[in-house]
């Protein structure tokens, strides 16, 4: 029994003394505290329910209170001549039936286990997403320039490649000439390259 079920039993009109609840209360200080806090209200309800379990006793109880009330003071019900059951009341009952039908339908849908068909649909969706991911990854890998930078970690896209390395490569192959770059661009390229490798 969990604490939620214990609360249901604590507030149960008749089963509030069951052994299962008593056992739970012994084990759970939180529920015990709750029961002690609610005790004045609970005992009042339970006392009345225990004592007025028989209809005759209930009627006695009510009739005593009736004697202190003035029946003519509050004309809350239709005056003589008007029908006791109005069309509005019947409409209210019909609306209640419509609402309950709709709500029980919704609850049943929610309670219904997930069908095989919807499971299959989910699997297909997951497979499609996976395929799309693989294709995107493959596409990105195709965009990477064939000329890789030697001696440095992969340079992120959009960042300037390391100019020191480029200069070294240039000296290794005199046929290719590198454009003269400013000091500023060299510093930026170093920062980009070394920050990336530090992060990795």
């Amino acid at each position, binding site marked *: 029994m969990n604490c939620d079920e214990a*609360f*249901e039993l604590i*507030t149960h*009109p*008749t089963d509030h003394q069951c052994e299962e609840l008593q056992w739970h209360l012994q084990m759970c200080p939180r529920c015990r505290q709750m029961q002690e*806090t*609610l*005790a*004045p*209200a*609970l005992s*009042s*309800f339970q*006392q*009345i*329910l225990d*004592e*007025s379990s028989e*209809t*005759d*006793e*209930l009627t*006695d*109880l*009510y*009739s*005593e*209170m*009736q*004697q*202190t*009330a*003035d*029946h003519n*003071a*509050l004309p*809350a*019900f239709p005056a003589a001549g008007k029908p*006791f*059951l109005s069309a509005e*009341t*019947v409409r*209210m*009952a*019909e609306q*209640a*039936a*419509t*609402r*309950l*039908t709709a*709500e*029980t*339908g919704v609850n*049943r849908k929610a309670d219904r286990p997930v069908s095989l068909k919807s499971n299959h649909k989910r699997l297909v969706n997951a497979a499609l997403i996976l395929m799309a991911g693989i294709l995107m990854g493959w596409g990105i890998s195709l965009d990477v320039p064939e000329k890789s930078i030697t001696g440095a970690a992969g340079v992120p896209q959009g960042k300037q490649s390391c100019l020191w390395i480029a200069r070294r490569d240039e000296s290794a192959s005199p046929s290719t000439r590198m454009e003269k770059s400013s000091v500023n661009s060299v510093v930026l390229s170093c920062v980009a390259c070394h920050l990336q490798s530090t992060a990795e």
Partner: protein
Amino acid sequence: MNQNLNDAEIMKRVCAGDFLLFDALVMRYRERLLKFAWSKYGRQVAAEDLVQEAFLAAFAARNSYNPSFAFSTWLWTIFLNLCRRHFKQQIRQPREVVRSSFSTSEETVIPEPSSSETPLQAVLKTEQFELLTMYLAELPEVQADSLRLRFFGGMKFTEIALTMDCSLSAAKIRVKNGLLQLAHRFSEDTASEGDVS
């Protein structure tokens, strides 16, 4: 024999023309509805009229009943709506909640005690019920109604949620908060009595 039939079967036969069988449903739920209404209005005439009107409405709208939901939930929903309508009519006029039957009025008559109880027990019982009725009237209506449905109607939380058109957790919170406030009120009352003595 009627006792063996469940509510849905009885309604099915009532809809088929066996109208007298509806009496079995009246016998089954009348007392609980009366307890609810009496704790809310404290006047027997109003309570009995409301209960009767709820049964008549259920009978008149019997063809709209659907066995997919419980008859008891439907009946309680009708009854609760009737009570709310009546409550709105009542609050337009001065509300009267009797604190004790032992007022100064000369018309007050102590009922004959039943064989199983002493006059003192009968007095205490009535006082207890009146006190509870008074404290319930001080609570927000939804909390008080949730408590009445739980204790006087003997309903489960799921049924309370359906009847009051709220979520299950809301029904539980209403009952819990209502009980907390009632307990606080009863404790205050006990403390003040202690101070007086």
